[in-house]
């Protein structure tokens, strides 16, 4: 079944509350997917710096001395550890190198996502435990997406949890199941994409990344997904400044959106939205099938 939430803030005054609002939305969706939970938050950026969120099954050993070991490999890094995850702050110019350096100095560490602003935290377990573990409530930011998973297409593991991030500052959450993901994965591998899981949703994320790498914006990539992805899907996606929603033409996976002057919100069910400020007077609607909805801070600014 799976539950999806998303919140794109237009009002800066709400930014300190992003993590708290998203946490409530996510916990409400627990009974749509109790297998795992994940959240991607687009937070503060600092000039010339990039963030890499990594995960380890043995954080005590893997994160100890990681900054020093990266320094020995020529990368200046600051480390902020949160439970099984750590956010590594590096120079923007080192972003291309860090993946290969990490495979040498910490082969067991997995990269959850990277970019100027995104941080991704995901684990197996109930949403309330996951948000507590990573102190999501305390996080601020401009927009974020979250997912509670009921596993259908692949194993219940940390890597099988959503959001999936396959490009800098890009991530995707998915409710549904794709039927042509194996074929599409092969084609994307031929184009140079790499995959960490057998999960169908990771293919959708990689597809969007590959399309955007060809010069499309998120809205255009999502339009292409309607032709190239087969199966059932409601996708909510984030980029550094953007937030998008698309449903397949059959649109049997549920979706509700709300918009006020302060925010755009997405939930698999209306229940997920009831604690948002001003929801009583928000414009609430069900996104149309095969229709791309897309907001961007840079375009609205």
């Amino acid at each position, binding site marked *: 079944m799976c539950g999806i939430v998303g919140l794109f803030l237009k009002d800066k005054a709400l930014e300190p509350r992003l993590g708290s609002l998203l946490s409530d939305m996510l916990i409400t969706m627990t009974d749509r997917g109790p297998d795992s939970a994940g959240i991607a938050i687009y937070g503060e950026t600092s000039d010339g710096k990039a963030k890499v969120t990594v995960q380890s099954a043995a954080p005590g050993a893997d994160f100890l001395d990681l900054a020093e070991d990266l320094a020995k490999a020529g990368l200046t890094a600051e480390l902020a550890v949160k439970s099984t995850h750590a956010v590594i702050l590096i120079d923007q110019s080192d972003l291309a190198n860090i993946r290969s350096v990490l495979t040498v100095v910490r082969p067991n560490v997995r990269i959850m996502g990277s970019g100027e602003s995104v941080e991704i935290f995901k684990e197996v377990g109930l949403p309330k435990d996951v948000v507590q573990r990573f102190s999501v409530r305390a996080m601020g930011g401009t927009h974020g997406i979250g997912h509670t998973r009921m596993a259908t297409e692949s194993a219940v593991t940390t890597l099988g949890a959503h959001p999936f991030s396959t490009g800098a500052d890009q991530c995707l959450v998915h409710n549904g199941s794709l039927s042509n993901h194996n074929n599409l994965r092969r084609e994307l591998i031929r184009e140079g994409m790499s995959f960490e899981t057998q999960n169908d949703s990771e293919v959708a994320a990689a597809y969007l990344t590959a399309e955007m790498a060809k010069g499309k914006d998120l809205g255009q990539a999502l339009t292409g997904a309607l032709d190239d992805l087969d199966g059932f899907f409601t996708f909510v996606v984030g980029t550094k400044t953007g937030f998008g929603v698309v449903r397949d033409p059959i*649109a049997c996976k549920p979706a509700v959106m709300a918009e006020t002057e302060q925010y755009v919100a997405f939930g698999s069910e*209306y229940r997920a939205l009831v604690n948002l400020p001003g929801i009583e007077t928000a414009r*609430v609607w069900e996104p149309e099938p095969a229709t791309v909805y897309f907001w961007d801070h840079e375009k609205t600014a």
Partner: protein
Amino acid sequence: MPVFDLSHTPLRDLNSALHNLGAGSNDTLFEVVNPRGHHAVAVGIDAPVTVEVKGSVGYYCAGMNDGGTVTIHGSAGPGVAENMMSGTVFIEGDASQYAGATGRGGLLVIKGNAASRCGISMKGIDIVVRGSIGHMSAFMGQSGHLVVCGDAGEALGDSLYEAKLFVRGTVKSLGADCIEKPMKPKHLAKLAELLAKAGITDVKPEEFRRYGSARKLYNFNIDNADAY
């Protein structure tokens, strides 16, 4: 009048109270406040009771209703009034997917819009929508009436049996075996009756078009295979 505040009262208490109404009960009007998108609000009513729901509900509100009058002062999630037997369900706002699905009787009135599959497999229910409806509505509709004052989405009435469909606005496309049919005096009279019951006074029966089954897919016939 019993009032159930779902922000602190378990939903089960509300539904139990509704199920335990005996014949001649003095409780004829219930109010439900703070539904906050809860699922299965006021399901399984089998008494002539009135329920006023003050807010929006989630899945399956007023399902299996048999004789009750439920008004939702907000919007409804998927499967509202599913398998209604008799009675009336009013929705002030919008309805999500498969509103009134498999309904055997009674009246469902949606003041706003309904999403996809409105009235799917309807079996005797009457549905009146003030706004528009989504794709695949009245799919396999067997009997009853679907009245749409706005527009209809793709594949209206796909594989339709004997449900009668009336649409005032545009129809994006008709499903397999669904055709436009002439509006006869008896249809205009039925439409007038349904609009009146729904409290809709500003549209005329003459403004609607009627759609129904071409009856070619009732029994499998190899010559019709392409139509499926």
